[in-house]
């Protein structure tokens, strides 16, 4: 795994590179380690509060550990009326966690998201940013089994 210090430094010279650097760190770790945000403040020459301010503003970025598979369920209106709530119920039941939580083995995290731009076939979930459309509750166990 690339060191976050190295990753941050790769973006140091890029104008406005802080957000890109966060994306790159998260791409490697699946989350932003708190120390990486503190380090980013030093690398980009901003205050710690600015570095944390940016990191916490965006729903895609998360400070602190989460699962290897991040499952996001779209709850915007088109997905809502197509039965997103039923998908949530099955996911919570199958994984034994609530929305926003991570399984004890660190494998899965469940999160809400707003529209991910795949509304031609609702409801929609994403697993590590890959969209899956027209999800039926009965499909969920098999989808989870595919995640290894």
């Amino acid at each position, binding site marked *: 795994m690339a060191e976050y210090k190295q990753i941050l430094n790769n973006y140091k010279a890029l104008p406005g590179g*802080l957000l890109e650097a966060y994306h790159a760190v998260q791409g490697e770790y699946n989350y932003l380690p708190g120390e990486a945000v503190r380090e980013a403040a030093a690398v980009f020459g901003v205050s710690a509060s600015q570095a944390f301010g940016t990191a916490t*503003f965006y729903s895609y970025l998360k400070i602190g550990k989460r699962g290897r598979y991040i499952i996001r369920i779209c709850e915007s209106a088109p997905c809502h009326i197509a039965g997103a709530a039923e998908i949530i119920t099955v996911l919570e039941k199958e994984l034994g966690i609530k929305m926003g939580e991570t399984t004890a083995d660190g494998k899965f995290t469940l999160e809400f998201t707003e529209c991910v731009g795949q*509304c031609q076939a609702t409801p929609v979930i994403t697993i590590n940013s890959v969209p899956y459309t027209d999800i039926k509750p009965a499909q969920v166990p098999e989808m989870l089994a595919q995640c290894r």
Partner: protein
Amino acid sequence: MAEEQRIVLRNADQINPAKLEDYLQAGGYQGLEKARSMSRADLIAEVKKSNLRGRGGAAFNCGLKWSFVPTDAEVSYVVCNLDEGEPGTYKDRIIVQKDPQQLLEGMAICGHAVNAKQGYIYCRGEYPYVVELLNLAIDQARSKGVLGDFNIEVRMGAGAYVCGEETALIESIEGHRGEPRFKPPFPGVSGLWGKPTVVNNVETFANLPQIVFNGADWYAAIGASTYPGTKVLTLTGDVEKRVFIEVPTNVTLREIIYNYGGGVKSGRRLKAVQVGGTSGGFIPEYLLDTPIDYDSMRSIGATLGTGAVFVMDETRDVVDIVTHIAKFFKEESCGKCNPCREGTFRCYEIMDRINRGRGTLPDIEHMIQLGKVMERVCLCGLGQASPSPILTTLQHFRYEYERKLIS
């Protein structure tokens, strides 16, 4: 199925989007070539005359916006808005996935008009696969030299709806929290890193190669006279065919739902359609014969917005859906201005109360008053537009609210 008229999607499924050669064979980059043979002033005048209006929601005349960039500016930027956060919308994704070079060409045309050497595409974080395709397309264009000395870089958003607002988007590219700026100054004068910046939507840019190539008069004659051209629409919800279409702007909502969309699913009756995304107004059945162009939509208290068409059948619970939408705005309000931060919170609180059968008549009156204040005083379009679903459903479907009140 009724005929579409494809301008920005004319190459869709006809060419391989990952191949610059295909685009060139289909006549690609001829618009840019023609643009570069024109003076900047003539190019801007031509685009202005075509009456192309922004496809990102605000419908501002594109050429007019470009003309605000000072002609003596040493550095200026072209920014493409691919944030596409409006729920129910995926047209910009389709436009790029089907034909990425067309977008690059459109941006380069703008670059020539405002003397910019650098362009940015701000792509939402939910579309990493689109970022990949764009980077490939940019690499190909660069090696082939078709963009000349115009350079394009992709930046990625990170899941914040407000970053679609042009000044919040600029803040985000600069690496900050995506909070909108006070206007004026407008980006055309002081935008990215304080330099003159043109921000346009993907679909706006994608129209330019054809407009320049075929001329302003060709474009101005298509569709509705005050908002000419075509619009890419995405049909979602209880519609038989959940598809994207590109149609002239004088087509009516009824034609869209029943001819292009195949009607309401399972032969049910229509209750409402929300056009323009989650901040759009709800439109009842009796107004369906309205054309979709920006001005016609405004005249019925709705908006064309992004061109999302969300269909709800007779069985849908409007109050429940609007409660959901109110929650969206509460979550997505950036918190910079008080009326939006507090207002979206209170709107959701009241909607939720009504939806759970605990609301009262004064709740409704307070919410109407609050919504009217927010429309006027919120800093940016997020807060200003957020009461629209509430106010329009109270106008057209008030009985659905009253039915849920404490008796």
